[in-house]
């Protein structure tokens, strides 16, 4: 009987000491999950990071977690959902200034440049602590928007930090004097010499091929006219004219494509630079990632 009592107590004791319990398992503690979510975010696994933050938010409503969830969504390109998360922090939150700034940043990242400029003009979205950074990003947006004119270069460049001014000056020069090809000149050049317009727009091989191709038919036409084979001559001249006209048209489009490509490259460089400079604003990721 004693033996059974002893055995029963031993069992109970072992179960109490060694038994698994969700409450005391440190693996799934809130602090561990927060660290794990931050690790996922840091390693750019934003899908799983967002899942962790969302799961944490159901148990522990927290402004930093909400902000982190919004930024994870933004990095996934789910901008509308990201903005909804950020909007939830606009009022009565200790992170409301960060949330508003990140909201503006999201508008910039998703390419809503006009909306970004309009919103950044409103005092609600421009907390005093971050107003310098927002002003810089706004100025930077003027470089991206093709229709905006920047008149005072000195004032424009001085709005940026000392170490940024050299690069910004270069961007400003490109914006002021973009590398463009005149489509009318390209077409006119090709009208005189087939393919010359394409050489002007730096499509060298296309220009040479257009010259050889049209020239070949013009040559055949001239030879046939010279030996009184007028019908054949007219046929070759017609084909030559057709491809010559195509070369004139193609030179104009080639100039436009050249301009569009240069614009695309310029915009890509601008966006890359803005990303590198963290959009001229404080890095909210530091609030939940200890780098």
């Amino acid at each position, binding site marked *: 009987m004693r033996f059974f009592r002893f055995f029963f107590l031993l069992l109970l004791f072992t179960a109490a000491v060694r038994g698994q319990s969700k409450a005391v398992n440190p693996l799934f503690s809130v602090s561990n999950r927060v660290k794990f979510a931050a690790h996922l975010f840091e390693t750019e696994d934003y899908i799983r990071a967002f899942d962790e933050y969302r799961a944490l938010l159901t148990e522990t409503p927290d402004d930093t977690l909400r902000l982190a969830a919004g930024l994870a969504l933004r990095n996934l390109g789910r901008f509308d959902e990201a903005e909804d998360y950020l909007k939830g922090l606009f009022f009565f939150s200790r992170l409301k200034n960060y949330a508003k700034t990140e909201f503006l940043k999201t508008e910039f990242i998703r390419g809503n440049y006009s909306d970004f400029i309009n919103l950044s003009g409103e005092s609600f979205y421009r907390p005093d602590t971050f107003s310098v950074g927002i002003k810089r990003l706004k100025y930077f947006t003027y470089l991206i928007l093709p229709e905006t004119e920047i008149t005072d270069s000195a004032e424009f460049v001085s709005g940026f930090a000392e170490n940024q001014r050299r690069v910004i000056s270069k961007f400003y020069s490109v914006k002021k004097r973009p590398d463009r090809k005149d*489509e009318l000149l390209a077409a006119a050049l090709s009208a005189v010499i087939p393919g010359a317009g394409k050489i002007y727009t730096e*499509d*060298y*091989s*296309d220009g040479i*091929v*257009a010259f050889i*191709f049209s020239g*070949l038919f013009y*040559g*055949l036409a*001239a*030879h046939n006219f010279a030996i009184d084979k007028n019908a054949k001559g007219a046929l070759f001249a017609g084909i030559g004219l*057709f*491809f010559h*006209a*195509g*070369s004139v*048209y*193609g030179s*104009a*489009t080639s100039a*436009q*494509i050249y*301009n*569009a*490509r240069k614009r*695309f490259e310029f915009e890509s460089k601008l966006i890359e630079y803005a990303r590198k400079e963290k959009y001229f604003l404080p890095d909210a990721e530091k609030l939940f990632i200890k780098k």
Partner: protein
Amino acid sequence: MEKLISRTLTILIFLTAAVFAQTETRRWSEKKADYKIPEISERNYSIDDSSVMMSLVSGFQYAYYFLISDYDGDNCPFTPTCSNFFVQSVKRTNIFQGALMFADRFTRDLNFIERDKYPRSQDGKLIDLPRNYELEESDIVILPKRSDGEKK
């Protein structure tokens, strides 16, 4: 003069054929088995009767298929192919502009030296969209080129 031109033309054709022709070794080389049911894309030879001009254009396209494409095989380096480019150009603009766009494309098709400037599609074709040649700079789409690491 005619001799010189015909000789140049012969050399050019021979050169193009030598560079781009399918080789026997390539055709019969080892291939991985693919058990997927292939998509059957048969040509639709129905005449587009939306307008008289489109009827003529689609007639021209089918003549081009029958006389050139079917014998040439799937060798046009571009997507859309030249004949499709012509039809799309006419549909998007008008017969005159479409014809000029086609003349320009046909000349560019002969340029086998510099083809890296076009982005490539998943099946390795050169992407060349008609919308980029409609003289509307704001409509031009610049597609990023596929990086070397990506599958061609």
